[in-house]
């Protein structure tokens, strides 16, 4: 590519030159051209000047009190969730217990009771496995140290 000013490289290299991101060969090519070309020099100067103007700007930022005090996570929602699950679990266990007791009392023969025992054992095993997983996960849970 050849430009009116005689430049043989992509004009975008001028930006790379200003930013100091060019590989040595490209930087040299630009450098050599700039020595002979006033218009590309002017472009370098202008990009540099605008950059100095923007980078030295400062904007009004919110004061500390304008940010939510309890950074950055919603602690309330996590506490609620942490409390919510045990409460729900307790309720479910209570409900299941009452139901089972009723069923046991109403059972007519030992076969029905056997079926109940089998069901409860199965559920207990499932619960136990979930519990073990949870306990294992708890060890790597970064939130469990919050209360210490």
């Amino acid at each position, binding site marked *: 590519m050849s430009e009116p000013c005689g430049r043989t490289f*992509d*004009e*975008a*290299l*001028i*930006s*790379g030159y200003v*930013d100091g*991101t060019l590989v040595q060969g490209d930087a040299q090519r630009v450098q050599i051209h700039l020595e002979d070309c006033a218009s590309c020099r002017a472009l370098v100067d*202008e*990009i540099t*000047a*605008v*950059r100095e*103007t*923007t*980078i*030295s*700007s*400062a*904007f*009004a*930022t*919110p004061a*500390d009190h*304008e*940010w*939510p005090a309890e*950074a*950055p*996570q*919603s602690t309330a929602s996590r506490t609620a969730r942490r409390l919510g699950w045990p409460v729900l679990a307790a309720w479910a266990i209570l409900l299941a217990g009452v139901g089972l007791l009723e069923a046991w009392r109403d059972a007519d023969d030992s076969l029905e009771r056997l079926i109940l025992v089998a069901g409860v054992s199965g559920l207990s095993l499932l619960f136990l496995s979930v519990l073990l997983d949870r306990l294992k996960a708890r060890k790597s849970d*970064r*939130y*469990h*140290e*919050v209360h210490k």
Partner: protein
Amino acid sequence: MTSAVAQDDEATDRELIDQAHSGQWDAQDTLARRHRQSAFVLALQMLGNRDDAMDVAQDAMLRFFTTLDSFDRERRVQPWLFTIVRNQVRDLWRRRQQRPGDGLVDGEALAGQLVDSANPEADLQRQQLRKSVWRAVATLSETKREIIVLRDFHDLSYKDIADVLKIPIGTVMSRLHGARKQLKAKLEEGGHHV
């Protein structure tokens, strides 16, 4: 908690991330204080209005910390946070049913958020120039505005810009140069030569 504050000021982002991963809440707080202002300013530069910028910055910080678990400690915090801010800005435009090309901002409002330097008398001319430049930045398309802002205000490296904009690093220089040329043209249109 108070004992950690002094050393947190000097802790690197990576150290703070590690501390946060191990459940130290004041590390999160230090990270938040360190980065939320630049998140706010980026949002302001993209949206042009303080209230929207504050909403976006707060949401972005929240998202930043809820995704902290999966944050790769080898990455740098600022580009990652800026990626989140950029997504939140786009979400806001989408919610308001603006097409991306409509993301123009009010140049007066943006320039009005500039803080005067310590010695306004001596620096009056420079500050006037800054206002003109930011008014012109506000008239750029958001694609051009974001790359100008990331490089020439937040001073991100080409690599970090590629990371935030999700473009190949080889594209950064040409896109940036196109944006700078456009900004130069806008300034000339407005009769400002920097």
